[in-house]
């Protein structure tokens, strides 16, 4: 009771603010909860099953598989599930204290190759699945993970190049980074989808998904490079001197002494870049790909399920929010953890 008095009604102004906010919240939240939960329709299979006036979750439930897998053939969807499980397992490797970084990287490289073959198929007894059919949450994850994996080596080289003592290397890396950071992702995607075919020799047709991946990774690479550069700047001079005293050359110094420390410093920054990239992959719907948001947006125009924009967007927002929010919590955890134990 005293808590309430202290935190909500300590003065006249405070009381007024509390009452006003309480009133607005009640005015906005009560109808929303009523719409989304209390009078919503959950069961059924057709548009006509939604007649209570609340949210029509029937539509989301009916379409759920498509939202997750896109147009991936139904009989082959187990392959996507396997890849998903594999990614989660590979992700936990990084948080496993006993696994060395080199082993983790090796496992990742193998896992990614395996995933790519499993998803595209065409080898062994697996039927080939065109990337055109990939969609939904699966495509969003492929774009995020693929973009990151392609961007990471580039980003490390760019970050090193920007701090190089060779002026020409430094200038070209800086220019390259600032070019991609200065333009919107959508123009990069346009460039990748329209201009890239013109850049390559005639006949070297590049798959649409691969083009989008190249665009995303160039863009993400520039941002990652800046994050990694921040980590490099935090490394004390003594580390370079110690490596030089051991007779290590430039690349060995970087690989064994500098980078492992720098990357550990920037894990929260990396996670934030991943969150940004995950949100930014929604832009591929503008160049005609059906990622998670894209496929929901497309399904809203379905003649059988018209007028359900609010349901579709609330569902999409809920999924995106829970993923981004958990990643941002993880980033804060890592930050606190590394602050205590690893310095």
């Amino acid at each position, binding site marked *: 009771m005293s808590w309430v008095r202290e*935190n*909500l009604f300590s003065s006249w102004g*405070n009381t007024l*603010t*509390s009452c006003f*906010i*309480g009133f607005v*919240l009640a005015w906005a939240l009560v109808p929303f909860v009523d719409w989304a939960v209390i009078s919503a329709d959950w069961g059924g299979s057709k548009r006509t099953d939604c007649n209570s006036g609340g949210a029509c979750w029937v539509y989301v439930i009916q379409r759920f598989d498509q939202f997750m897998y896109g147009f991936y053939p139904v009989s082959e969807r187990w392959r996507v599930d396997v890849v998903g499980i594999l990614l989660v397992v590979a992700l936990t490797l990084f948080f496993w204290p006993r696994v060395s970084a080199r082993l983790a990287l090796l496992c990742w490289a193998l896992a990614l190759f395996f995933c790519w073959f499993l998803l595209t198929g065409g080898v062994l007894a697996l039927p080939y699945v065109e990337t055109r059919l990939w969609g939904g949450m699966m495509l969003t994850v492929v774009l995020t993970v693929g973009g990151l994996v392609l961007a990471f080596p580039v980003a490390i080289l760019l970050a090193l190049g920007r701090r*190089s*003592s*060779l*002026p*020409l*290397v430094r200038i*070209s890396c800086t220019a390259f980074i600032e*070019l991609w*950071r*200065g*333009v*919107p*992702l*959508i*123009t990069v995607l*346009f*460039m990748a989808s*329209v*201009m890239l*075919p*013109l*850049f*390559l*020799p*005639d006949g070297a047709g590049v798959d649409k998904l691969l083009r989008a991946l190249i665009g995303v990774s160039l863009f993400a690479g520039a941002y990652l490079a800046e994050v990694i550069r921040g980590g490099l700047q935090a490394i004390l001079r003594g580390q*370079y*001197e110690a*490596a*030089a005293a051991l007779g290590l*050359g*430039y690349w060995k*110094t970087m690989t064994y002494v500098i980078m492992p420390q720098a990357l550990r410093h920037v894990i929260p920054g990396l996670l934030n870049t991943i*969150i940004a990239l995950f*949100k*930014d992959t*929604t*832009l591929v*719907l*503008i160049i005609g790909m059906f990622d998670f*948001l894209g496929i929901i*947006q497309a399904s*809203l125009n379905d003649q059988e399920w018209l007028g359900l*924009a*609010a349901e579709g*967007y609330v569902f*999409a*927002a809920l999924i*995106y*929010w829970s993923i*981004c*929010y958990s990643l*941002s919590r993880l980033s804060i955890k890592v930050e606190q953890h590394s602050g205590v134990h690893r310095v």
Partner: protein
Amino acid sequence: MGCITHRLYGSFLDNNLWQSVRHTAIFWQLVAVAVIVAGGMWLFGNILDNLANRGIASGFSFLKSTAGFGISTSLIDFTEASSIGRAFWVGLLNTLMVSAISVVLATILGFAVGIARFSNNWLLARLAMGFVETLRNIPLLLQIFFWYFAVLRSLPGPRQSYDIAGLAYLNYRGFYIPKLEFFDGSGWSVVGIVILAVAAFCLRRHRVVPRISVVLAVLILVFLLVSASVSVPALKGFNFTGGSVLSPEFVALVIALSSYTAAFIAEIVRAGIQSVPRGQIEAADALALSAKDRMRFVVIPQALRVIVPLLTNQYLNLTKNSSLAAAIAFPDLVSVFAGTALNITGQAIEIIGITMAVYLTISLLIAFAMNAFNRSTAMRGLSTG
């Protein structure tokens, strides 16, 4: 190989080795340049081949050709007979307009929310936190879609419009607001108003004439009354006449952009305020400043030193994010130029090149302006603190 050894031993190595270190450095730079030049030439050769094979024209003469399409929102005159070059300017001006309006709104909202997180009212602080955590964890494109398709596009028709104090009306065709209409030949009074407004801003803290800004404000009002009238939208038949209308695309874009960016600005403001040493707040309390004065005269000026450089990034992001307008067909630069004009002319390289160059220029200009402002706040902080 060169850089570390070079930096550490360069000064005291014997001459021969020093020479070889320097030669290695030059060698690696030459290799880097050679790789870049060779790659560039390979790409350029491919482009020339491909353009010739596909029969795509090159050069910038397409900018003078007739556009042949209309644009719904335009700050300058534009018809289907106008040139594509003019369409470019229409798009650019729309981008700048949306960005400028959203930057102002996002800053106001962001500061309000950021400061509200320190409120001693539990409910207000929690509400501010909820705002930040909700908006920044949902993709901007989804928010734009939500405001456009789920909110603005499903509003009632003109006859059932939401009536805001009889002055403004909201329906699915847009937001109808009152407009200031200047009488013919009142150009000089507009100039006068601008001069008075600038003077009022510059003299707002003048010590000799304390209430000068009030006097100037009254003068501005008088000028407005004699030279302009307010046109209020009114329902005539099936639509509104008078006033001006903001298209649903524009409103959705401005709401989504400014609230999304405001969430990030609020976090920056919070970080800035937290960076102010506790002793400063205690000192302000010792001087018996009220909570409001403590914030305004002690905390915010010092927090600004942390906030401003980070704010620059958010303004840049907002400007770049305004390109998402293409998804709801608001005629910004990307939508008009890299979308419609590209489809008509097919000259991808020139058009994407120009578009990217424009955003790059805007980014550099904003960064430059904010750095200048940053220098001024940093100096002020130093001289008083």
